[in-house]
């Protein structure tokens, strides 16, 4: 009972227009002020939502959320003004229909609105090609002209084989120093160094992990000194020392065994020995022994040599095995 009277009192003061009592009499708008009435009135939707006496006077009509900014964006807008700096992903600002998340129960990934996964990951929306072009145009003012003669990649490699990478960091913080800025990387192609075969092999062995076999690049990353200049000097020193050491011939290098070899050499290997022995035995049975050199330089032997070297160096596969089979057939006259 008390609740209903409270309800009616509040109702009559605010929603005068919408207030109906049980008898269907509309309260007149002139009737101001709280008044008690015993009649019950039917509560409407809006009454149910906001219970209690809170926000009676200050309550404003609830307004719909505005349309996202993406609706108002044109196709040819300037994107670098939307994302001028690195910022987190804002679904209402990015006009792309992106979905991210694990689809549960044969569903689809979650939409971008309110998607934490999209916000967590780093994005490069501030580094579109147009934005980078603008930044380059701004930096161009401080650059000197590129030499005209260096117009191809090959020429750059030929004249400047050593490439040094240094990174500068710009950020707003209590100090301008960044410890990551001291790292210096030096890359050079081994084929551009003036080394013979022995020197090259020795250099690759000494460099170890720093040499990339596919691209034939030697990479030194120096970060052991506190200053960038010192790291650069150290990297250059490493390169010089490596080069000179590889050119030297040490006396103990003569003891290099077959297990140390980088690639398979057919000459003076067991394979050559076996093949020659077999052929000699075959020829021996046919009266007439040919000298070793003649045997070695014959065509089947050369083919066999190539196929075995290929098999060992390039690895085993159907094609190399077939080639080997063919060469053995020719060698043994099958």
């Amino acid at each position, binding site marked *: 009972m008390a609740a209903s009277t409270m309800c009616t009192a509040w109702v009559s003061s605010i929603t005068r227009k919408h207030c109906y009592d049980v008898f269907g009499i509309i309260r007149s708008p002139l009737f101001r002020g709280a008044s008690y009435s015993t009649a019950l009135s039917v509560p409407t939707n809006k009454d149910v939502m906001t219970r209690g006496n809170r926000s009676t006077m200050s309550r404003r009509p609830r307004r719909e959320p505005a349309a996202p900014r993406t609706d108002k964006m044109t196709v040819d807008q300037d994107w670098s003004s939307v994302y001028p700096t690195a910022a987190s992903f804002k679904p209402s600002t990015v006009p792309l229909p992106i979905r991210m998340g694990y689809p549960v129960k044969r569903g689809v990934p979650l939409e971008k609105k309110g998607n934490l996964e999209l916000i967590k990951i780093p994005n490069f929306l501030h580094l579109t090609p147009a934005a980078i072009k603008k930044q380059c145009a701004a930096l161009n003012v401080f650059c000197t002209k590129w030499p005209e003669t260096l117009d191809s990649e090959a020429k750059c490699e030929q004249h400047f084989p050593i490439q040094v990478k240094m990174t500068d960091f710009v950020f707003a913080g209590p100090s301008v120093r960044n410890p990551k800025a001291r790292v210096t990387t030096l890359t050079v192609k081994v084929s551009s160094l003036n080394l013979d075969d022995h020197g090259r092999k020795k250099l690759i062995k000494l460099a170890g992990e720093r040499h990339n076999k596919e691209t034939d690049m030697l990479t030194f990353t120096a970060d052991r000194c506190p200053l960038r200049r010192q790291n650069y000097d150290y990297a250059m020193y490493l390169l010089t020392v490596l080069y000179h050491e590889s050119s030297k011939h040490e006396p103990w290098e003569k003891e290099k065994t077959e297990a140390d070899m980088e690639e398979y050499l057919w000459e003076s290997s*067991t394979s050559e020995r*076996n093949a020659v022995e077999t052929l000699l*035995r075959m020829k021996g*049975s046919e009266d007439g022994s040919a000298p070793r050199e003649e045997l070695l330089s014959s065509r089947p032997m050369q083919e066999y040599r190539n196929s075995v070297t290929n098999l060992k160096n390039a690895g085993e596969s159907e094609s190399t*095995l077939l080639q080997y*089979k063919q060469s*053995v057939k020719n060698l043994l*006259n*099958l």
Partner: protein
Amino acid sequence: MALTRLNRIVQLSHTVSLTRPLHGSGCGLQLGAATQTEAPMESPRAVFRTSESEPASHGEQHIGQFYTIPPSQVKTIFPHGLPYRFQQQIKTFNEACLMVRKPALELIGYLKKADPTHPSVRYVLYGERGTGKSLSLCQALHHCSLQDWLILHVPDAHLWVKNCKELMASSYHRARFDQPIEASVWLKNFRVTNERFLKQIKTSQKYVWSKREFTDEGRPLGEIVDQGVTRVKNASDAVGVVLKELKAQARPGSYRLVVGVDGVNALWGRTTLRKEDRSLIDPSELTLVHNLRKMMKNDWCGGAVIATVTQTGSVFTPSSAYLPQELLGKEGFDFLDPFLPVLVPAYSEKEFESSYQYYRDRRWIQHHTGHTEEGKKELLFLSNRNPAALERLCAFL
């Protein structure tokens, strides 16, 4: 119409033999049922069977067809040589049927053309698991035995490098180890295969087994084998003597020798056997392996060496390895070089069809879907045309 009759008979036999016995009465009943419908089945039978039972006369036109090996030959030539599953199949179907396939034909062709005066050529069969390397080897050996060669068959070299119950130090060589059980078993089977030759070949020197036992020069080789079988302690050394004698006397004028080794990569791999101080034994420290390795060299003439490299049964090799070099290792490859690698691929379309028809003919496929076109496509897909996979799949049907 014939098919429905067949199905009914199949159902009848299925109800009678509820379980699937591998050998025995159930199979007999099925065979009895088979003879009733001999006439209508004649035409499809002819497609995948050939009446040529000599591998020497097989040609390209026989590829995909099954030929039968008479039981007497099976007993003499292959006392221990056939793979276990194939032995079970022989018992079930009451016949030993091998499919003529390209690798075996190729091998037999080389063997026919080979010059006996030249050093023996080594052939290495390789292929993925279950493609039929062992059976191709057996086929080649069958051909050789029909041509009256001496057969030295090591059914699985992997058995010699693992799970040895009794390992004793060799009396002949202090650093080596003997395996009496394996050696005596092998000698028994060797005797069964080559009875005839053992009487003919004579020893070339005197062999002293112990203080009181010795074998004179000029005695038949059969005595050495008997010595090895009876005196199990000397079995490994007996094997060594036999191998040495055979190799030394295999000249173009006398017999021709074929050495068939299944799983030759075991000779250069690793063992699981340990010495008393729990250090691993190298394969070269085992007498049997040491002597067999000597046979693998091509310093003798008048014969051939056929080997398979297989991952099944090998220790410490990854299951995806099937190429010769990765299974043999550097040492093995250098030892066998130059050898002729022969690839054994999976079934071709025709061979698969033939195998399927054979299983149907033998009433091995009993499930009703197995007889339909869709069932066949399913089998093709599931087995990926791998012979062993197909065989195992059909065993469930």
